[in-house]
């Protein structure tokens, strides 16, 4: 029974992360990883980005984005390995690595966002 209720929690995190990632990641990835490095658009200055990150709302936004996206990845990647590679015997290790990675990433995000300004 405990297993089942955990599964529901992970699924909610997965689908919330799916929505957040679908809405927010494409624009951010396009701007920061493609448009600015290739010089298609003028990159924002260090000061401008710091001013943005100092706003509490932006920090909450970034925290939610990082946390939910990581749990989205953990859930989906876990089942991709499970279905795609037929590695049932490694189930526990995969579970630990995926959700463990998501928890560590969330803690790193919390630490960085808490101490950045």
């Amino acid at each position, binding site marked *: 029974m405990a297993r089942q209720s955990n599964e529901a929690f992970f699924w909610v995190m997965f689908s919330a992360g799916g929505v957040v*990632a679908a809405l927010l990641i494409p624009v951010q990835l396009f701007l920061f990883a493609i448009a600015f490095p290739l010089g298609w658009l003028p990159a*924002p200055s260090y000061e401008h980005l710091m001013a943005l990150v100092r706003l509490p709302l932006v920090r909450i936004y970034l925290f939610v984005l990082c946390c939910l996206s990581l749990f989205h*990845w953990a859930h989906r990647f876990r089942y*991709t390995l499970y279905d795609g590679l037929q590695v049932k015997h490694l189930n526990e290790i995969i579970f630990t690595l995926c959700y463990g*990675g998501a928890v560590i990433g969330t803690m790193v*995000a919390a630490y960085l966002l808490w101490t*950045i300004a």
Partner: protein
Amino acid sequence: MGAVKPETIRVEYAEFHPRWYRPPVSVYWWLKQRQYLTFILRELSSVFVALFVVMTLFQLWALKKGPEAYAQFQQWLQSPLVIALSIIGLFFVVFHSITWFNLTPSAMPVRLGGKRLPAFLVAAPSYVAWAVVSAIVAWLVLR
């Protein structure tokens, strides 16, 4: 509790129930059909979602360290290998967005006056929200 299912009763009599025969499936089953491959590629888009978070964490770390560290981070983003990875990543995250929004009509069928709303009308608000949110984020960053 609910009523006992008839199947449960039947199983109790078969003390040495044989295992069902399951034909073994190849590990490469997902290469056999285009839909299967699309499914696996859709699931693998999550890897790029995670990589994006890793990039964002490095960006925050560089911002925290100071202007020189951030300039170095920007230079790293300009290296050809990272650019190539970013372009592949953008393809995958857009693929995730489109497949995710197109699933909404199946996950959440909307009925109006007893009739099911056509799928594109249920998915459309997601696309509008995507455009609006993207515009807001771009405006905040580029301002």
